[in-house]
């Protein structure tokens, strides 16, 4: 267990070493959020709300989804590169789980970006526009939990595709398509409230809604009591399902490698 904590801490420290990245990360996150806020402010004009959704709610949605998706960005070609240059075999020489090691490192990086990219960008955004305050302390706590669960869903989807590098020459294209799907279906381009009813129905049976939109709704107080527990249960269910799939692909890939030798 201690080893995985160290992997995360080392990655966190490692990120601190790059000053320019640090500065660019804040600017990048702030600009992404502000561009969306400007567009939606113009769309709202003087209207108090659209379909019962206020501008503040939309702004809050974008701060959370865009801020987190920037923070949750990491090198998704890592496994492919390791498989291509053969250094993946080094990983099998250590008495630790590669999946958990990679997850720990990515979490370390995510934690760094939340603290040093997202929070400063959030500060800049608050100067520009008014956001919805948290509904309750309990809601805020539930949201944090939900963000962690959402991260795991996002991470597992990415990892599953990364494992395909055992069989495919390049997964770059698939990763790119995946990222487009994630931004559309998780509500980071158009908040899911405004999605056509039919599409919304489809999205609600995919893991994408559980990534960012569930935390957003918890924060805004749209989900409370049993509904909130249910939403968290759905997130956990997706983690279990995706975890099993990821593990199966990983095991098969490793088997291929140790049997065929690459």
């Amino acid at each position, binding site marked *: 267990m201690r080893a995985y904590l160290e992997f995360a801490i080392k990655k966190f420290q490692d990120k601190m070493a790059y000053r320019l990245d640090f500065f660019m990360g804040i600017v990048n996150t702030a600009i992404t959020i502000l561009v969306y806020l400007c567009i939606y402010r113009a769309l709202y004009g003087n209207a108090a709300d659209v379909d019962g959704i206020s501008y503040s709610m939309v702004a809050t949605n974008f701060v959370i989804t865009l801020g987190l998706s920037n923070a949750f960005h990491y090198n998704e070609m890592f496994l492919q590169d390791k498989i291509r240059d053969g250094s993946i075999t080094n990983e*099998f020489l250590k008495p630790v789980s590669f999946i958990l090691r990679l997850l720990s490192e990515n979490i370390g990086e995510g934690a760094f970006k939340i603290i040093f990219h997202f929070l400063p960008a959030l500060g800049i955004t608050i100067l520009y526009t008014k956001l919805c305050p948290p509904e309750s302390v309990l809601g805020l706590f539930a949201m944090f939990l939900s963000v962690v669960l959402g991260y795991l869903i996002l991470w597992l989807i990415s990892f599953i595709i990364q494992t395909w590098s055992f069989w495919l020459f390049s997964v770059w294209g698939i990763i790119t398509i995946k990222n487009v799907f994630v931004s559309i279906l998780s509500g980071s381009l158009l908040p899911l409230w405004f999605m056509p009813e039919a599409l919304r129905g489809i999205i609600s049976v995919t893991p994408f809604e559980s990534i960012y939109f569930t935390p957003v709704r918890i924060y805004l107080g749209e989900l409370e009591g049993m509904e909130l527990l249910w939403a968290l249960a759905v997130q956990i269910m997706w983690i279990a399902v995706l975890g099993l799939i990821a593990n199966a692909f990983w095991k098969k890939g490793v088997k291929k490698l140790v049997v065929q030798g690459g």
Partner: protein
Amino acid sequence: MENMIEVRDVKKYYKIAKREKGMAAAAGNLFNRKYETKRAVDDISFSIKKGEIVGFIGPNGAGKSTTVKILSGILYPDAGEVKVGGFIPYKQRKQYVKNIGVVFGQKSQLNWDLPLIESFELMKFIYKIPQKKYEENLRLFSKLLDMEEFINQPVRQLSLGQRMRGDIVASLLHSPEIVFLDEPTIGLDVVAKERIREFVRYMNETERTTIIFTTHDMQDIEKVCDRLIIIDKGKKIYDGSIEEIKNRYANIKTIELLLEDGRKETKTFDVSKTPMSVVMESLFSEKNIKDITLCESEIDSIIRDIYEGRVILDDLEAERN
């Protein structure tokens, strides 16, 4: 004494997809791939006792790395049996890898962005090395390998020799009983090579670590190893002491002749079959010789002769058995 490493009739064949030229062939390949079989390890057997230090030598592509991969549990053999320290490496990989240390000279396992010392720290947690032992080992190793001056530098800034020393330390901090070093001296200068040789020798002598050391460099073997295994084209062609090969070669002499007309000639002969006096007599009676030089048989040239088939080791093997 019990064997630490036992390898019996091990084979590993790689399947390589054949690529044909031309569009039509490429399209055909999509549906009906043709494979070629590469016999990387072709029926190799040997056993190694605890505390032995064995050199594996062989030309590029001989199957050294493949053998090391099988021994370290990251590759399944296609046939045969392997047992190392009581484990079947490729079947019990997770428990097994705690007991071994592996260095692939061509592939670093250090974290590129972190200072060397932090990669070592990670090893402490990965292998659950007690703090006291970790500190002892680290102090000793960095003294022996002269690492104090670069231990705080990020790995990407290190020279190849420094990085290799780092890799070796990283794989030995947990004091493994068995160590596999796959070309740990490749591309290094003489000084760095010498450091590594001394260190490996030291680990073997003081800790009784069982070590397999692969290399192209015969000097590595001469200075470090007690025993030598030569492999070529996936087959073991020699297994024994270096002395034995040298003694055998002591009888094979090469002389360089400088003739009266300025031409040079070299002659190789076996003094156990034709005595030196007879050779000299016939040479002097046949040619006008101005000068004569007796060449030392360097172990390097011996090995070259063995690879190139100029010397057959069969009778040598037969003699021993």
